């Protein structure tokens, strides 16, 4: 059991040796549940509109407090607007924590399917969105140059060098 859950703090995730690179700063441990980040009108986190959250169980508490945050599907709703970080009176940076969890989830093959699709698109073509016949036609009608695939080879080279291409292949094989 994590120390923080014994003494009643929000964060419950077990610390790992590589957490330094995941930016799980000590500040994350001192979240005092003041809820400023999620319930102060006009400054609050947009995810609070999801019915599962309220002032007692805010989005940030749920992300920081999950047993295994990288398997928490809610992490993908964070838009990285940094508002939580800006308003926190104790300099906790939930956005850094959530982004680290996204990276860990992605590494483990738990990415949101739409995000996985987007990453695959970029890694294979250089574009996040597929170039459809409709977009080609619209560009032509407007007299705009057709979109090319000038980046594709370089992006594939980069993805292979960082290991992303191999990870994507692994996920695909695991699915089959």
């Amino acid at each position: 059991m994590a120390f923080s859950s014994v003494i009643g703090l929000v964060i419950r995730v077990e610390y790992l040796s590589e957490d330094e690179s995941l930016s799980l700063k000590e500040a994350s441990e001192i979240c005092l549940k003041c809820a400023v980040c999620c319930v102060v009108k006009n400054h609050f986190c947009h995810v609070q509109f999801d019915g599962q959250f309220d002032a007692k169980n805010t989005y940030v508490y749920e992300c920081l407090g999950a047993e295994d945050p990288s398997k928490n599907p809610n992490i993908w709703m964070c838009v990285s607007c940094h508002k939580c970080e800006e308003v926190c009176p104790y300099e906790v940076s939930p956005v850094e924590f959530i982004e680290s969890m996204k990276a860990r989830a992605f590494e483990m093959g738990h990415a949101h399917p739409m995000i996985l699709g987007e990453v695959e698109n970029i890694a294979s073509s250089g574009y996040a969105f597929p170039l459809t016949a409709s977009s080609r036609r619209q560009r032509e009608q407007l007299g705009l140059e057709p979109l090319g695939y000038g980046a594709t080879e370089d992006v594939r080279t980069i993805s292979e060098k960082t290991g992303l291409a191999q990870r994507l292949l692994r996920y695909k094989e695991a699915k089959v």
Partner: protein
Amino acid sequence: MRYAFFKGCFLPVRLPHIEKISRNVLEELGVRLYDVEGFSCCPEPVGFYSSDKLTGTAIAARNISLVEDEGIDLLTLCNGCTYTLKQVNSALKENDELKTRVNEILADTDHQFKGTIKIKHFATVLVEDLGLERVAKKVVNPIEGLKVAGHTGCHIVSPPEIMRFDDPFDPVVLDRMVEVLGAEPADYEFKTLCCGWTLSNYGDREAGYKLLGAKLGAMRDAGSDCIATICPQCFYQFDTGQALAVRKLNLGFKLPVLFYLQLLALSMGYSLEDIGYRRHRMRDPVFELKLNEALA
């Protein structure tokens, strides 16, 4: 005034009519845009860049390096592209170890990040490089009588120490840009609230509609005739997303949305047809009438 034009991928693929009018308006303002061969996605910040920072950093560094070869700064039309590219540009300029690692990754692509240029959103170019006084001189049809709800968006303002555009909790720059066109900026509740794109797409769609309903209701209560955005994805959420939300929530009203450069184009003498308004999902005859009266 010359810039390398970073189109991104959402705008040229989904909203080419906005790319078209943006090019025309910027050129008329004396902002020369250079198309650089070989740009990829920035990459997109919420899905890609957050999920794989190293690959994301290397891809962004490659994009920046293409412009460094040209020796000019880079102009974007999108908050998300600006966010990724500025974060990477800043991180690599400050961190030699990361820069070396990224350049090792880029070695096989024959590109290297040097750290010699700046990344600029078009709004920064209008406000800081060109100056709003020069923009005002191009306004031949002030859109007086129109109240505009400006939605600045999230990624252009935070983190403020890197983005350096506006106050994340009290943004006023877009309002000043709207005033220059002769329109009145609307002061509305939930002004800094996200458009809800991520919530709608990666979370609960119903929650996304609820958020959009609250934000649109606040804009409407403040007397807004339309919305102005400076981000293509926010535009899309307020246009296509609103079309869905209107049906789901029985809103009973519509608020057309315009990309800021479309609004500027109207005040420079372009017509609704010229700016591609017929391609929008949220069209409203009441707004069109009021706009035409203002432009007459």
